[in-house]
């Protein structure tokens, strides 16, 4: 479970995150939805402890992430905004490297790695160096190394960004599976379809503030819009410059 209370972060004059409060419960998928620059990534960065909030509280399970960042990181599996790989290592070596950093070794590490490779349909490319990987293969590798330690809470920053249909499906499959195993899944996206297909709760964020939250049905009701995309546009106050962000929201 992840709880965020009154989170603030500013960069100079810009209030990137301005009083965000929400809870992501266990066994559920929570989606952070918002246009580019709304504050999704900054919120997640504070959550995965690489950025210090100016104000506010973050609790992961029962650990205060601001006071004990390392304790919080033990309970997190993260696919960050930047998920670069090491070109000279193979997919398997990436997963094992992160597993070992988490303290997993020997037969346990091998079986977990094998399991993840199968689940993500990567067995054929497991022992190839990632230098020649496609975008989808890279994302899958990054995802696998992020959850090798079977974390209770999984944070994914735009996990399907730029993926083809097959890879997107694989990622969605993983998210559903994690949810069914009772994990807390929190992911961000600017793609309406994605969020509505997967999420139990959607948190719409714009200009660093939460403008709405609830189930997809709740959101439709709140805005009086039948179409979720119209609801999103109405909520994020984007109606005026709708066309500028349109490419991010396939109909």
């Amino acid at each position: 479970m992840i709880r965020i209370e009154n989170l603030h972060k500013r960069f100079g004059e810009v209030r990137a995150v301005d009083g965000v409060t929400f809870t992501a419960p266990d066994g559920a998928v929570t989606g952070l939805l918002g246009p580019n620059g709304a504050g999704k990534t900054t919120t997640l960065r504070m959550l995965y402890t690489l950025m210090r909030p100016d104000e506010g509280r973050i609790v992961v399970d029962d650990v205060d992430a601001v006071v004990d960042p390392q304790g919080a990181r033990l309970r997190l599996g993260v696919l960050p905004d930047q998920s670069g790989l090491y070109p000279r290592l193979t997919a398997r070596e990436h997963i094992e490297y992160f597993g070992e950093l988490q303290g997993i070794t020997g037969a346990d590490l091998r079986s977990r790695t094998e399991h993840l490779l199968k689940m993500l349909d990567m067995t054929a490319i497991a022992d190839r160096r990632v230098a020649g990987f496609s975008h989808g293969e890279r994302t899958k590798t990054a995802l696998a190394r992020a959850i090798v330690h079977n974390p209770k809470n999984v944070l994914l920053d735009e996990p399907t960004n730029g993926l083809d249909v097959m890879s997107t499906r694989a990622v969605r499959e993983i998210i559903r599976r994690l949810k069914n195993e009772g994990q807390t899944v929190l992911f961000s996206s600017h793609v309406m379809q994605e969020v509505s297909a997967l999420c139990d709760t959607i948190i719409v964020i714009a200009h660093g503030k939460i403008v709405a939250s609830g189930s997809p049905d709740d959101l439709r009701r709140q805005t009086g819009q039948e179409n979720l995309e119209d609801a999103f546009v109405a909520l994020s106050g984007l109606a005026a410059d709708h066309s500028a962000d349109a490419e991010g929201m396939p109909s």
Partner: protein
Amino acid sequence: MKSSPFTQAMVVFRKELKDWSRDRRSIITVLISSLLAPGIIGVMFTQLASRQRQVEDVTVPVVGAANAPALIDWLKQQPGVEIVEGPADAEEAVRTRREDVVVVIPKEFAKDFAASRPAPIRLVADGSSQNTRPKVQRVRGLFQAYSSQIGSLRLLARGVSPAVASALTIEDVEVSSAQQRAAMLLGFIPLFVMIAAFTGAMGIATDSTAGERERGSIEALLVNPAPRSALASGKWIAGTATSMFSVLITGALLYALFQYVPLQDLGIRFRLGPAQLGGFLATVLPLCPLIVAIQMYVATFAKSFKEAQSYLSFLMMAQMIPGMMATMNSMATKVWMYYVPWIGQQTLLTDVLGNKPINPLVFVVVGLVNIILAVIVIRATAGLLHRERIIFGR
């Protein structure tokens, strides 16, 4: 499931070494920089020695050889000496540089020699010519040797000890150009070795800092529940290993080289035996951790390999300054010099190679100073990894 920071550092260490061992470019860099010192020194020494040998194998044109058959026989018996018939006009031949030196034995020679009077020998040479001077010296030396040998025999024949006739014994200390150049080359050894240590470290020091930033892998790495100090230490130890590897190759090659380089031909009393090699490694290896730590600290500020490399090339020049100064004008060695990194290695290495006796404690203290400084710098690097500007700044 949580592992200790030490275990985590070892995990990072193994990963960085594996990653590095697959990077052909950085391995080639290490090999080339390790070959630099032994290569240059080997080629130069062999060249200098062969030039020296040319002087020793001397062809002496003699005019009037018939006037002194005994002398000519003696000359022919000397190693490396060949006697040929001299040109008719000796002075003209030397002036026009057809000959470097010509010996003229006048007719009076036989008469004076037989009467035990100083017998005249004329050495025709061009004193303004730098190149021929060693050869002229060599020829003059031959005649002087003959002169004193015959002189001694004459004294003995008269029942006088030849020692009476020599008030002085003169020991030659050669500082001719070949020797000077050889000595200067030996002075460059510390400099080359520092370059090897530095380039050996660069691969991992840049790849594991600026490289992580450029690839965007730093966020994912830092999200692991490992303290920054453990991550930085693992990278540091890996970099130190490659830097030491580079120094070891250089040391081994220099050692092998000096078993073959004909230093004695150059009249240099320099030896790189097991003791010197040991002192050499004990001096340079403790510097490696500090070099890596400083490189990592600097490279962490860089957003890309290229940026990191340009910072590090400045650093490389900076580290060469003490060595340069030491080779150009030999400063008097002061005690504090041993304890300042780089200057200390330079001084200590000069002592080691110059075969000066050194208190082993000096090695220990110098090594400790370096390692303590390295730990301080690595802690500072780990501190940098907490900065948002470093983690996210691109």
